[in-house]
């Protein structure tokens, strides 16, 4: 197996090859590392963990030879956003401040991936401390979008998305406070799931905002995301916000039929400010859901227009709380945009935070009511495709809109409500940039939203496309 053989490979297909002894975990890992070296210019990784990867792959092959098969992630190369703790391996969070931080233990999710037999090939680039959505990192360099190197991959889990889209590992774990899994998944043409709040323990994930942070998978397909979610979900006894309810199996996701499923399409807010190309692609995807048997239901979503403001105050207040000491003692060690965000955040008062949480409670009630009428909501993931590296504003209609404020406009909603939402590719702009369809469901419907995404991608075939990359040594 060689680097170019990884084009279009998924966990589902690779697992069959490994289990059937057609390919060894070592062969797959070597090919992935070869491809990673050939695409170093993508800047998807902060640290490549070659030695660990080969050791884990050898162990996976030995276990399989003894008849010990650990499941669909056995021998599968994966990466982690570089804010998941990895024992003895530096975990920078994309920052200078944690530039030499080598944790004493693995994050819960890191350990669970290893237990499932996965092979860690690298720690992925990200926006500094996950505070931002472009992955233009002042300390580790800008990560590029594999579909066009002049564009950002989104963020903050930009390295994770770029790696998976480029075939540098078959899955990556990202984290999401306001859209940091779905935005880069959408911009890079892959699947990204923000699970129900608390389904994936946050233990050992460098925090951004404790009540909004979620860990979750980025993969090429929804079926792959279901397999990864199954491996990392469940309480660990250490994260007090971990949910105790159990998710249905990943197999459930693959059996989802859209016949009779009530798919809500928001009549307010979601499509109000949107790039026309994105609008057309998403509406076409919704028509595809109808052709697959879903009942499309237009719905009004009260209070949704307050989401971005509530998210900003909650997120920045909690984030500034975590960073306060460093901000006071070593402000010069932050990148310019992060320093500005956090400085502004220190001006929020306790009363403002409580007001934002009350607005959030109202929004959560609004969505509980909506999900009495529909099973899931379908919408754009982002209202724009990827922006150019360095671009600060985006032309929408006759308005010039700041790129950062528009990116999380829709994704932040499910962070506030704690409900699951997945981004699945639904086409490409004329410039060849991917666009994502978001499927958002009620709490604990993670496998349902993945099932809808799976049914859509099976019918549409968008996930089979690979970025136009030249793999050269």
């Amino acid at each position: 197996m060689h680097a170019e053989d990884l084009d279009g490979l998924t966990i589902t297909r690779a697992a069959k090859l490994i289990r059937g002894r057609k390919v060894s975990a070592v062969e797959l890992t070597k090919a992935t590392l070869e491809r990673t070296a050939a695409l170093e210019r993508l800047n998807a990784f902060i640290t490549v963990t070659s030695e660990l990867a080969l050791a884990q792959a050898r162990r996976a092959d030995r276990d399989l030879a003894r008849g010990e098969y650990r499941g669909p992630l056995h021998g599968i190369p994966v990466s982690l956003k570089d804010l998941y703790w990895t024992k003895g391996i530096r975990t920078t969070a994309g920052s200078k401040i944690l530039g030499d931080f080598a944790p004493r233990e693995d994050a819960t999710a890191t350990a669970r991936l290893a237990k499932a037999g996965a092979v860690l090939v690298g720690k992925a680039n990200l926006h500094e401390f996950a505070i931002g959505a472009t992955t233009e990192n002042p300390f580790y360099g800008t990560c590029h979008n594999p579909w066009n190197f002049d564009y950002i991959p989104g963020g903050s889990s930009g390295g994770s998305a770029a790696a998976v889209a480029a075939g540098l590992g078959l899955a990556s774990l990202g984290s999401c406070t306001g859209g940091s899994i779905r935005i880069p998944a959408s911009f890079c043409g892959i699947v990204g799931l923000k699970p129900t709040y608390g389904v994936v323990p946050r233990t050992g994930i460098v925090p951004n905002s404790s009540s909004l942070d979620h860990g979750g998978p980025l993969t090429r397909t929804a079926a792959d995301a279901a397999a990864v979610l199954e491996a990392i979900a469940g309480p660990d006894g250490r994260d007090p916000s971990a949910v105790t309810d159990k998710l249905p199996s990943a197999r459930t996701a693959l059996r989802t039929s859209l016949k009779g499923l009530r798919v809500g399409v928001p009549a307010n807010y979601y499509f109000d400010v949107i790039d026309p190309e994105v609008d057309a692609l998403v509406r076409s995807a919704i028509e595809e859901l109808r052709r697959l048997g879903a009942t499309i239901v237009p719905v009004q979503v009260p209070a949704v227009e307050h989401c971005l403001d509530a998210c900003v105050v909650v997120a920045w207040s909690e984030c500034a709380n975590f960073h306060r000491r460093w901000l006071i003692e070593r402000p010069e060690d932050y990148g310019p945009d992060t320093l500005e965000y956090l400085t502004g955040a220190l001006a929020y008062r306790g009363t403002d935070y409580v007001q934002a949480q009350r607005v959030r409670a109202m929004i959560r009630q609004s969505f509980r009511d909506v999900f009495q009428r529909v099973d899931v909501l379908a919408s754009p993931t982002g209202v724009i495709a990827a922006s150019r590296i360095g671009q600060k504003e985006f032309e929408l209609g006759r308005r010039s809109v700041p790129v950062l404020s528009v990116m999380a406009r829709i994704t932040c909603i499910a962070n506030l409500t704690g409900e699951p939402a997945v981004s699945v590719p639904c086409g490409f702009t004329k410039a060849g940039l991917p666009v994502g369809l978001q499927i958002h469901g009620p709490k604990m419907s993670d496998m349902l939203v993945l099932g809808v995404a799976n049914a859509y991608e099976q019918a549409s075939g968008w996930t089979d496309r690979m970025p136009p990359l030249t793999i050269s040594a």
Partner: protein
Amino acid sequence: MGDEDRFTPEAATATARWAGLRETLPPERLAELFEGVEQVIERLYAVDVEGFEADFLQPDTRAR
């Protein structure tokens, strides 16, 4: 927000010091940042949240 209510660079510097920050950003930029913060806060206080409380003592650890 009227002009008389806008954050002045002096007020912004005082606010930053109150928050414990060193002078890392120019006062004019600080004023822009804090003014943006004020605008978000004003919009949030305009929302009628009667009957809704932050449920800090009800950790949402089960699907409801």
